[in-house]
C-alpha cells in the first residue's frame, strides 16, 4: 500500500466553499488510490463540469476534465483503449443524472471496469442552487421557485435494476468508510456506482451535515448479493439512510484486456483487404 501523499496537489488551494462536502471526497479518493497500490500515472480521473468536476485539479493524477455530463463515454473511450489504466469518474448529480443520464443508463448496461463517483449534493452547486434530479419534490430552486414538481431520482435503484457490478452509497462525513467504498469500487471488475451524500453548505439547506449525521447508518450484516434486500435499502430514506455497499450483481466486465496504446502504431495490414478489390481480368 502506497502513500496517499503522492496524489497531493502542489498546493491546497481549491475553489470550493469552506465546509463543502467535496473536501472529504477528495481525501477519500486519494486514500483509495493509495490503498489500491496505484500511482498517479496509472490511474485516470475523468471529471465533468460542476463543483465536483473540479476535484481532479486538487490532486495529482491523470485527468480528463471533460464537459458537463460526459464523463462516462470519455471514460469508456479511455478504458477500451488502454485497459491497463484504472479509470474513475467524478462529477455532480447534475452532471451524472441530468445532463449525463443517457450515458449512465448505457454505462450501466456496458458494465465496463470503472468506478463512477457521484458527489450528490442534491443541487446544482456551481450554477448557484437550482434543483437537481436528486432534489426532493417540492425543493425550491432558482428555476423552480414554487418547488420542483417531480420526485427525486434514485440512482441506487437504477444501478441495481441495471445490474451494475457494485452499487454503494457513501457520505462525506465518513471519510474512511468512503475511501473503503472507493477502493472496493476500484477493485471490483466491473462498473461500481458510488453515490455520495455530499453536503453543500451554500445551497442545500435541507440535507446538511447535521441532517445526514442524524440519519446515516453504516450497513453491517447486509449481504450485497441479495437483490431484494438491496432494493429495499436503496429505497430507504428519511430517518434512516443506509451507507455502504448496497448491491453486488456479480456481473463481470466485458472490458477487453489488450492495451492499444503500448503497441507501436501498427496500422492494419490493409493490403490483404485491398487485394480483394483487385480486378482480375478474365
Amino acid at each position: 500500500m502506497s502513500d496517499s501523499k503522492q496524489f497531493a496537489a502542489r498546493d491546497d488551494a481549491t475553489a470550493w466553499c469552506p465546509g463543502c462536502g467535496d473536501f472529504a471526497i477528495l481525501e477519500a479518493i486519494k486514500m483509495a488510490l493509495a490503498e489500491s497500490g496505484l500511482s498517479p500515472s496509472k490511474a485516470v480521473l475523468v471529471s465533468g463540469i460542476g463543483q465536483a468536476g473540479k476535484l481532479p485539479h486538487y490532486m495529482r493524477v491523470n485527468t480528463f476534465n471533460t464537459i458537463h455530463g460526459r464523463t462516462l463515454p470519455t471514460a469508456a473511450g479511455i478504458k477500451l483503449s488502454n485497459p491497463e489504466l484504472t479509470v474513475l469518474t467524478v462529477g455532480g448529480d447534475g452532471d451524472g443524472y441530468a445532463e449525463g443520464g443517457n450515458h449512465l443508463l448505457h454505462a450501466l448496461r456496458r458494465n465496463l471496469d470503472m468506478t463512477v463517483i457521484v458527489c450528490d449534493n442534491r443541487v446544482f452547486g456551481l450554477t448557484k442552487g437550482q434543483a437537481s434530479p436528486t432534489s426532493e419534490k417540492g425543493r425550491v430552486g432558482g428555476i423552480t421557485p414554487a418547488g420542483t414538481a417531480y420526485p427525486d431520482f434514485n440512482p441506487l435503484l437504477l444501478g441495481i435494476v441495471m445490474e451494475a457490478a457494485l452499487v454503494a452509497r457513501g457520505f462525506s462525513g465518513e471519510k474512511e468508510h468512503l475511501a473503503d467504498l472507493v477502493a472496493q469500487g476500484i477493485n471490483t471488475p466491473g462498473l461500481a456506482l458510488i453515490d455520495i451524500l455530499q453536503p453543500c453548505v451554500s445551497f442545500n439547506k435541507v440535507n446538511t451535515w447535521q441532517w445526514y449525521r442524524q440519519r446515516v447508518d453504516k450497513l453491517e450484516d447486509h449481504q450485497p448479493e441479495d437483490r431484494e434486500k438491496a432494493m429495499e435499502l436503496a429505497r430507504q430514506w428519511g430517518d434512516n439512510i443506509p451507507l455502504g455497499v448496497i448491491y453486488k450483481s456479480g456481473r463481470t466486465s466485458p472490458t477487453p484486456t489488450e492495451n492499444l496504446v503500448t503497441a507501436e502504431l501498427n496500422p492494419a495490414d490493409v493490403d490483404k483487404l485491398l487485394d480483394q478489390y483487385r480486378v482480375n481480368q478474365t
Partner: protein
Amino acid sequence: MEFNIRLCGEAGQGLQTIGKILLDGLAGQGWELFAHQEYESRIRGGNSYFQIAVSSQPLTCHNPRPDLLVAMSAQSWQQFGPDLAEDGIGIHPGPEDDKGGLVLDAAAMASEAGSAKMASAVVAGVVWSVVGAPLELLQKQLAGVFAHLGEEMVENNKKAAAVGYQWAQQKNINRELSPPQSPRQRMLLRGNDAVALGAMAAGLKFISAYPMTPATSIVEYIAANAEAAGIRVEQAEDEIAAINMALGAGYAGVRAMTATSGGGFALMVEALSLAGSAEVPVVVVNGQRPGPSTGMPTRTEQGDLLFVLHGGHGDFPRAVLAPGSVEEAFYLVPHAFNLAEKYQTPVIVLTDQYLADCFATVEPLDSGEITIERPKQGKPSADYRRYQVTEDGISPFVPPGSEPAVVVAVGDEHDEEGHLIEDGPTRVAMMDKRMAKAKGLAAEALEPIVQGSDNPDLVLLTWGSTWGVVSQAVADMVSEGIAVRAVHLPQLWPLPKDKLGELVKDVNVYTVENNYSGQLARLLAMEGITTLGSIKRYDGRQLEVPEVIKAAREVLK
C-alpha cells in the same frame, strides 16, 4: 464510348446484389466503371436504382441518361422510363405501354428456371447479352457469389441468367461493346470502403459511432475487419457518446474516429469544441445528406460545409478535408489522421451519399504511399506539462500511463499544466498557442487540383463528389474548344489561399455545388476570393454533366 445501364426496381429486389455482380463481371473484362445508387429511406418497396457507367476510359461520374434501363417493377418503369437516352433500350415487366419498352416478365421466367427469387439473375443475363459479353463469364460470377447457398442455388441462378441472356439475344438488342484491348490494372471499390480502408491504413485503433446513413457502412466495414486489424469498435448510445468516447481514446493516445451524417454531427459540436480546447486529436467523418433536419436521409447534398467549419462555440483550430473521388478518399483520410495528431485538434472529413455509395474502378490503391506522422512526443517527466507553450503551438504529447508523468486534459481555460485559470494573460497565451496551430495547418494546406485550359475564360471551382461531374464536364468542354478550367479543393479549411488566389486571378469564377446557398462561394468570399456566382442543385440528387455544361455556356455568353 460510354454505355450506361440502369437497373431499377423496389428496395428488396436485389438491385445491389445484381449490380455488384455485373460490376465485377464487367470489370473483369477490362472495362472502366462508375456506379451510383439512388434509393429511398425504406427497406422494401419504393423506387430505387443502381446505375453502371461502362467505358474504355476512366470515369468520374454518372450519366443521367441510361442507354439500357431494366425495370424490375412497373412503378419504377413509370418513374425512370423517361430518363432513357434517345435511342436507349427500355425493358420492364409490363403491362405494355406507349413508351416503347420491351416487356420482360423476369419473375415468371425465373420461376420457370426454378424460383421467382432469381428474377435478378434473369436481368443480369439480359444485361450481359446486351453488352455482348460471353454468358459463361456471368455464370462464373454467379457461381462465386452464390456458392455459399449450395449447388442447387448456383445451378438455378445460372439457368436463370441463361434464360435472360437468350431472351435478349432473340430481341436483337445486342450493342456489341468491345472491351478495351489493353486494360489498366484496376481496383473496383465503393466510396465508403475507401474511407474505411484509408482509416485502417492510417493506423486507426478505435472507432465509436451511432448508425446514420450514409456513414454507417464505413463503421460496418471497419467492424467486419476489426478483429484482424486490432481495432476496437464501439456502438455508442448516441452521437454525443460516440465522439466523447473517441476523445477518450485520443486522450489515451490511440488514433480514433467517429462517422456520422449532418444530424449526428450537430450533436457532436459541443465535443468538437472540447477537442479544440483540450487539444485532443479526433477525426470526424460527416457523410452529408440533404438537410435541414432529417431531410432526405438516403439522398445526396453538400449542405454542411459552413456548419462543419463553424460548428462548436468559440474559436479553435480545425481542418476540413473533402475527397472528390473514391481514390482520393483512400489517401485523404490518413492525411486527416496525421493532421489531427500533429496539431492535436479535430479534423473533419466531409463526404456525401453520392461518394459514399458509388463504386469506381481506380488505379490500384497503394498502402505504401501512406505515411504516418505521429504527434511530437514529450518526455514523461514528473513535471510534464500537457499544454506547454511552444512557438508552433504544438505541445509535446505523452500518453497517460507513462510514469512518472500525469497527463491533464481539460476544456476549461487552463495553464500549461492543465489547471484552471481565471486571469487574462494566461488566457491570451493559451488562445495564441492554440491558434498558432491554425497557422501551421494553413501553411501545409493541400493544393487545389487543376484540370482543363491553361488560359481559361472561366474557372469552375468545386469540392467533394461534385468534382467527378465537373471534371467530366470540363473535359467535354475543352474537347469542344471551350477555354474552361476545373479546380477541385481537397482541403476546404484552412484554404490554400495563395495558390487559390493565383488560380482565380483575373478570370471569371463560378463554384459548382450540390447545395442551395453556394456554401463554397460564401466561404471563398469570407477569405477574400470573389466569385461571380454558383452553379447549384439541391433536389437531393448529384449534378449532371449536361446541366453543368449548359450552365457554363450560359455564363460564357
